[in-house]
């Protein structure tokens, strides 16, 4: 019955139409535009406003930046070139200042024939931190990480090679003492020995040892005073040394804050809250004006070192909070598991808790570092020549008096490059952690 139907009813189709392509508004760029930019009246309006803003900014800054003059010896010369080629009304950047002064913005007053030293130090630091940042690097290289700070110190400041070596020996003394004594007298005695013996070594032995070694074999490179440090190098040195030095301190503070012991916990809380409650700039002024009051009469050491100490203390409070977050994020079963295995507190921390907690905290530590690195610009207020300090110095010279934007843009771009890539790294770590914990 149904098979006759098709012939009797004329309007039933018996062949399929060929497929047509979708309407032009549903494919390709048009569809994308419709969906993403003009899906509604408000959206269209927002799109147009945004495009206008982008156009406005680019049309004002673009020609100024692109048409900038790269080849001149001073601002006056820049203006002469501009007047000759573009007319007096044109407004163009004078990038020549960067060509003339880039070495000061990057290295400060560091001797120019020694620029290889900070660069090499940065590479050594990168090599030292690689095993910590990427777990594909072989574990054996962790020894390099331990050595890197001393090598960097020596490369940056120079002087006799025996100074960092005799200082590093203190850690070796502590390590050996812990190994020997914890075996025979227990881990607590080992810990105490590992703290006390290096202290005794540094106070009593390292000085004479350094003197003797230096006299016996005076090997060394040219000494550079910290006053010569400046520009981005100063920011990086302060930022990196503060973050590296503050890590152990921050971990101890975080553990103390989690502790059951009332006095230890209270003092850690007070320290952390006081440091975090007061702006860095006040701490920097404290380092500049007051640190000499708190130390024995007659002690005096240079401002860069004082700033590094102060920024280290400052960073340690922030690191402590990050690590505390990591400790709290660890499931309680891990602590209980360690206890049920009969591990002592320090064993449990060292073998079970800290490896996991620190891994969780690394993105937070990187973010703290980004904040700290940006904050190093504040040292300009206590007279250190960081990039902003140098931009003031360059502006004070007769050649470049009155140059603002070019320097600010360069400094901003450098900071952006550094901080943005660190931020991406921290994001990558967070994603990786999420994948691993799933």
């Amino acid at each position: 019955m149904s098979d006759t139907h098709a012939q009797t009813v004329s309007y039933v189709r018996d062949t399929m139409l060929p497929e047509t392509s979708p309407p032009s508004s549903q494919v390709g760029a048009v569809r994308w535009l419709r969906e993403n930019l003009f899906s509604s009246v408000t959206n269209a309006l927002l799109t147009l406003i945004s495009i206008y803003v982008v156009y406005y900014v680019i049309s004002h800054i673009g020609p100024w930046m692109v048409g900038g003059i790269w080849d001149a010896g001073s601002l006056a010369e820049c203006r002469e070139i501009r007047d000759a080629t573009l007319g007096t009304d044109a407004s163009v950047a004078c990038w020549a200042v960067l060509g003339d002064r880039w070495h000061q913005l990057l290295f400060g007053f560091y001797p120019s024939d020694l620029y290889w030293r900070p660069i090499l130090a940065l590479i050594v630091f990168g090599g030292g931190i690689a095993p910590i940042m990427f777990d594909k690097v072989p574990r054996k290289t962790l020894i390099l990480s331990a050595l890197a700070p001393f090598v960097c110190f020596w490369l940056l400041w120079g002087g006799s090679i025996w100074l960092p070596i005799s200082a590093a020996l203190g850690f070796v003394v502590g390590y050996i003492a812990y190994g020997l004594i914890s075996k025979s007298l227990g881990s607590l005695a080992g810990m105490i020995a590992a703290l006390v013996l290096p202290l005794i070594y540094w106070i009593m032995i390292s000085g004479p040892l350094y003197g003797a070694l230096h006299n016996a074999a005076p090997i060394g490179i040219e000494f550079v005073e910290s006053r010569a440090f400046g520009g981005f190098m100063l920011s990086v040195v302060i930022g990196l040394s503060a973050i590296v030095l503050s890590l152990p301190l921050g971990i101890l503070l975080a553990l103390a804050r989690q502790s059951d012991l009332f006095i230890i916990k209270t003092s850690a809380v007070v320290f952390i809250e006081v440091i975090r409650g007061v702006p860095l700039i006040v701490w920097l002024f404290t380092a500049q004006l007051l640190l000499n009051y708190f130390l024995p009469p007659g002690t005096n050491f240079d401002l860069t070192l004082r700033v590094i100490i102060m920024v280290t203390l400052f960073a340690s409070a922030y690191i402590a909070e990050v690590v505390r977050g990591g400790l709290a994020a660890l499931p309680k079963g891990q602590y209980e598991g360690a206890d049920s295995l009969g591990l002592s507190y320090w064993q449990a921390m060292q073998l079970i808790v800290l490896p996991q907690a620190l891994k969780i905290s690394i993105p937070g530590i990187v973010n703290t570092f980004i904040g700290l690195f940006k904050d190093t610009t504040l040292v300009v207020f206590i007279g250190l020549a960081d990039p902003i300090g140098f931009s003031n110095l360059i502006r004070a010279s007769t050649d470049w008096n009155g140059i603002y934007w070019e320097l600010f843009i360069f400094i901003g771009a450098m900071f952006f490059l550094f901080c943005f890539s660190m931020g991406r790294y921290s994001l990558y770590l967070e994603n990786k952690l999420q994948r691993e914990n799933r």
Partner: protein
Amino acid sequence: MSAMTDPPKPAFRLSQLIYDTRYRSITIQVVALALIGWGIWWLVTNTIGNLAELGKDFDFGFLGQSAGYDINQMLIPYDNQDTHGRAALVGIANTLLVAVMGCITALVIGVLAGVARLSKNWVVNKLMAVYVEGFRNIPLLLWILLIHAVVSEALPQPNAFRGADPSASMLLGDSVALTGRGFYFPRIGFTNSLSGAEAVAPREGYTAVASGGLDWLVILGVLAVSLVGIKLIRNRASRIQESSGVRPTTWYTQLGLLIIPTGIVLTVLGATIVTPYLKGFNFTEGMFLRSALVSLWVALSLYTGAFIAETVRAGILSVSKGQAEAAAALGMQPGRTMSLVILPQAMRVIIPPLISQFLNLTKNSSLALAVGYMDVRATLGGITIAQTGRELEGMLLLGAFYLTLSLVISTAMNIYNNSTKLMER
């Protein structure tokens, strides 16, 4: 028939202090206390020794001495014969002013940017990403200097507004003047002011924001009472709706309650709009925001706004997609879904980091130093220390001020956190 006897109590041995966990914690704490006490004692004796060597004493008496310097922005009356203590208070008021202004604008910018960053609109999305990343990755100090350079270099000086054919002109019907020295806005003056006639024409050098403080207090009080009244009307409407199912129309009573009492007070006080005008080489009257304040305010708002935008974005993303879908399934409009379903849940995630951003903004306001804004660091921690040579006392007071401020804010945050915490079994 043998009575149970207690096991013999072992005598306390000294080694228990180390090996017995019951006593070890006490030992450790006593040692720690001794070390901390020794450290503090060491610092204090060093300080006393150093002070004695310099011939200084430890005395807060300088706060009562005459300051002898001028402050260019005052929210409370002050002149250079007043004490250092009062100068510090003026500085504190200035710090709080820029902090509060910054927090409000940063919140607005941050929420808008955070929502726009989640927009499906590609251009808006990317523009906001550029804004957020740009401000998050470049030091605040650089932004403050940059914005200050824009404000003070690129804007015309007041004298550009003078003459028959001025090169600059006022905006919005001759009521707003943006100059390199600062921004002039119209303000509300009171002809029948409660605090005397000077509220209309403030003394030279006064920041007019502060004028007629008593009048503003009265107005705000009346407004608050009106708001309470509106709340009561709404509650009553809800009660009627619950019992009868019909919500009475109340918008006109609400509107009346909002406008009429405040309007009456404003009329009684003789409120008039005072616009700034050129007098001599400068503008006079109106509200004056110094360029230092403007650039600090703008920089702090934009910088913190970028951080708040990320916070808001994370908060909204933290609410699971099912919530929005369920709301849509119930037939809710997108706007109501946002305000009734998503935002209340996102708030729990947003508020704690938001408060710590406010805290950061307040602490960052000490960068006022870069533009010469007279905040507490500039008065108490700057000129006062330089004039009296009391670094130790001055820095202690400065630190104590910031510490108190952040402790107050973080206590408030903890109370809020506890009240909104999800109840877990």
